[in-house]
């Protein structure tokens, strides 16, 4: 589904949503979500239905076991010994765990088979099965399993209403590339009817336009250069081109992903629903850890809550930490974080693809974060010693630039097809960097025109300015919505015209799918 089709679909569904009686509105959303899913390929429907049913039923069973235990403890509690109570609890937990593991195995099993079967077969010389990855399978798998784990942990009771739960899993804006919603933040919003709110809708439309601007005007204009340079045989371009390409990729990657998230978040706002934020100006980060707290936030928090902490608190890690404490107490304190980061980023790398470059990219981030975690006491001590310097603007800018460089080194691994290519390209930036490689119109032979470059320069400058304002706490959409009607209309219509004229779209162009589409 094209960007405009998605936007148009969202607008139409929002109009229908607000025309329906309040009691039925969540059903409109459900129908719109499954309609959207079906329009993107009927073959994916059985998988989302299977995941929904598995997590719904497992959560119900886990809830029922908890309720049964609770009832028994309340009813017979006085007659039971402490040992018997502990045994009952352990039995219940064991049964709950069995349901949890069964459902997780089914959901992640489906994801793994569909996502990695061809890669694994390829390693062993087998023929690819040509399985089509259903739309949004990673996102709804993470979302529904997160819900299931929360129910298992007793964070909230299971959802009993199957249709409301199905809506939580399938809400169509988030199916494309997230964000990964949390049940306790999203379900209530989805189920409750929302009145039409003109200002809210304008805010939603502004966010949609901003998302389209990022995706169509910036990301898709930068894309040809990125593709051309990264797809060229090694040595075809010098180090200067490699540097330009990775910077373009940094811009393209961010604007593609965050633009898509803005678009779907804007569509959700048309229904009165706020999705979880997924980006918070990541290139303003002062450290790699900070970057990952601002980039793909919903995945990061999912990994933190359902992988990092559970892993860090496992008995082997705790035991190892205790063992290391005998050698070094600070290292022992940092060890769970070090190992947790390594595991999380290894998983994130594998999630991006079962190839060496992604694993290298994941490990690169994991190792750096592990080192950072291990050295954190030293950083703190240094900062305390040089408080004035570390609080200065110059130091802040230096940290931002340093983080940007570190992130871009990682992007080489992310974008190159092979880890070795990434290393060679990075090496060329150091060993074969000559500004003359970009002179004399050489840049214009990398897939972009002079018009593309001019538009990109202006658009990225606009993005930077808006980001600076956002960093300072200015919410531009709120500012616009408070203006007189004609000003607001001018901004809205101007935004539409700007996106239509400056954006890359239409059959004459290669309108690129979102980078995280069908992850």
């Amino acid at each position: 589904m094209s960007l405009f089709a998605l936007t148009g679909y969202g607008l139409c569904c929002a109009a229908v949503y607000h025309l329906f009686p309040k009691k039925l509105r969540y059903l409109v959303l459900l129908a719109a979500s499954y309609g959207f899913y079906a329009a993107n390929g009927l073959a994916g429907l059985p998988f989302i239905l299977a995941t929904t049913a598995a997590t719904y039923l497992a959560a119900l069973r886990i809830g029922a076991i908890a309720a049964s235990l609770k009832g028994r403890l309340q009813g017979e509690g006085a007659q039971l010994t402490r040992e018997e109570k502990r045994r009952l609890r352990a039995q219940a937990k064991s049964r709950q765990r069995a349901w949890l593991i069964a459902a997780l195995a089914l959901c992640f099993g489906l994801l793994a088979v569909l996502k990695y079967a061809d890669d694994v077969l390829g390693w062993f010389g087998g023929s690819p099965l040509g399985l089509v990855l259903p739309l949004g399978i990673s996102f709804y798998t993470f979302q529904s399993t997160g819900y299931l784990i929360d129910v298992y942990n007793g964070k909230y009771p299971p959802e009993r209403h199957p249709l409301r739960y199905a809506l939580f899993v399938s809400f169509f804006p988030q199916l494309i590339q997230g964000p990964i919603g949390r049940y306790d933040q999203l379900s209530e919003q989805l189920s409750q009817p929302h009145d039409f709110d003109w200002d809210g809708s304008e805010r939603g439309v502004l966010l949609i336009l901003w998302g389209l601007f990022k995706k169509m005007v910036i990301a898709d204009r930068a894309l040809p250069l990125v593709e051309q340079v990264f797809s060229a045989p090694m040595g075809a371009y010098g180090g200067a081109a490699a540097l330009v390409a990775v910077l373009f990729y940094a811009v393209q990657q961010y604007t593609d992903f965050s633009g898509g998230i803005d678009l779907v978040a804007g569509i959700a706002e048309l229904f009165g629903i706020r999705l979880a934020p997924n980006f918070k100006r990541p290139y303003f980060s002062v450290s790699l850890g900070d970057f990952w707290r601002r980039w793909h936030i919903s995945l990061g928090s999912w990994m933190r809550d359902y992988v990092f902490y559970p892993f860090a608190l496992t008995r082997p890690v705790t035991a190892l930490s205790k063992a290391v404490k005998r050698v070094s107490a600070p290292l022992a304190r940092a060890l769970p974080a070090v190992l947790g980061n390594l595991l999380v980023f290894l998983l994130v790398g594998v999630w991006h693809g079962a190839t060496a470059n992604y694993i290298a990219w994941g490990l690169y981030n994991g190792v750096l974060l592990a080192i950072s975690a291990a050295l954190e006491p030293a950083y703190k001590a240094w900062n305390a010693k040089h408080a004035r310097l570390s609080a200065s603007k110059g130091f802040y800018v230096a940290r931002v630039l340093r983080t940007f460089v570190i992130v871009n080194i990682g992007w080489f691994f992310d974008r190159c097809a092979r880890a070795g290519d990434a290393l060679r390209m990075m090496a060329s930036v150091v060993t074969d960097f000559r500004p003359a490689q970009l002179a004399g119109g050489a840049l214009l032979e990398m897939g972009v025109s002079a018009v593309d470059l001019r538009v990109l320069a202006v658009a990225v400058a606009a993005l930077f300015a808006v980001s600076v304002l956002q960093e300072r706490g200015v919410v531009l959409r709120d500012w616009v919505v408070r203006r007189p009607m004609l000003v607001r209309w001018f901004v809205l219509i101007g935004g539409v015209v700007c996106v239509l004229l400056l954006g890359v779209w239409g059959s004459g162009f290669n309108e690129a799918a979102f980078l995280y589409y069908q992850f």
Partner: protein
Amino acid sequence: MKRKLRRVLRGAAFTALLLCVLAGVTRLVERKASRTRMTPFLRDAAQFDVLFIGDSHVVNDVLPMELWRDYGIASYNIASYGNTMAVSYWAMMNALDYATPKLMVIGTMDVEQNYKLSGSSSDVHTALDAFPLTLTKARAIEDLMNGYAVDDDGRYYADMKGEYYFTLGKYHSRWSELTPNDFHPAFTSAKGGELAVGVATPRDYELIDEGLLMGEDTVGFDYLRRMIEECQRRGIDVLLTNLPYPATETQQMASNAVYYVAQDYGVDYLDFVYLDQVVDYRCDMYDSYSHLNASGAQKVTDYLGRYLRDHYDLPDRHEDAAYLEQWNADYAEYLQMKHDVLLRAWRNLNSTLMLLHDADYSACVVLAGDSPLYADERAMRLLQNIGRSHIFEEDGASAWSDALEPLGALFDAAADGLPYIALIDRGGERMRIADRAGAGEASIEASFGRLAFTAQGGALRIAVDGEEMLTEMQLGDQRALVLALDSATGEVVEALGF
């Protein structure tokens, strides 16, 4: 309730404003080719008694304004470059939403094509873009683009439908190349005809037996039949025509088969490929294989005009006050375009000579005795071509005027290396040709006065009725002077020394 109503009105106002802005932006950035050709048609659609439909041959070969000048026929050429018969059919269907012509002249050159769309998606845009989005246009897009046709870039037309419905999808990136013409587009003053400037050597061809036919039926024939049936259903006369070009055997076999289609439906068919005395391919080709230049178009249009006048009940709108003022003003604009865009822009001897085969121009040609043009076969032929005209026989066949080489003294001058002066005067009732060889001075009676030439060395002086018009005109390498005179007023439109 009141609040709800206000919301609805507010939403409607915003939507209306947005649509207006988008329509304006679309109009601004669109390629103007289609609108340039079709806006005058849509503006005055009810006026046209004859419509010409077909591909680029029809565009280049049929000049409605010449038909107006000579025959008072109010016509419009709605043909478009690269049209297949299917696109022509749908262009005609869209045009008939606005116009009610008495006669539809259909160019049949493309009947041999067994596909709906050619590879040039831009040509399809040119044919359809200017028509407002209506049910007919939607049917056109859906019918034309429902298969697996691809354009020259390998894109499926089926994937491009959107940009035919809403052209912003195609042209939105043109904002960086807008010109003043995009802000103030100039519409054709030629009622759809376009004069091609250039003189090419025709490819070799041989006429085949008229009984040899194309064996298979094609998509082109299917749409040709649909066009005839649609016109007949609406009570519109149909004339099929295969305009002149050096046709290949296959093309001739296809055009032979059209004869039987015409017979089936009881409509006329003019196959110019066999009417081989209408144009002279050696002077009248714009390119070597198909399109006529302005000289050829003048001849074909002249022939068609007489044919339409003699065979169809078409009103002479010269006698209609409702037409006269506007069409004469349009004609003046068209004439100015011929002066400015064609004659004054093309500083090339062959093109200039070719363009002077035009009833709007009288011409004076002066050659020095040592002019290399005497040895240039093509230039000599183009010189003769200026003064050629048709005579028409009653059976519809045509023959050349009293001489294929009306400039008789030209050969004497060439043979003896003498100076040469000719006047082709179209200012009177009939064209009058006067030429002299060997004169350093000459005086010729013209419709606009007595024209006197004086040649001294390499310079020429020209006077009309004793009043000097040009003094010290210098001859160039070709040792030639060409004067284009407005045939009505005798004013010098352009004087070129070659």
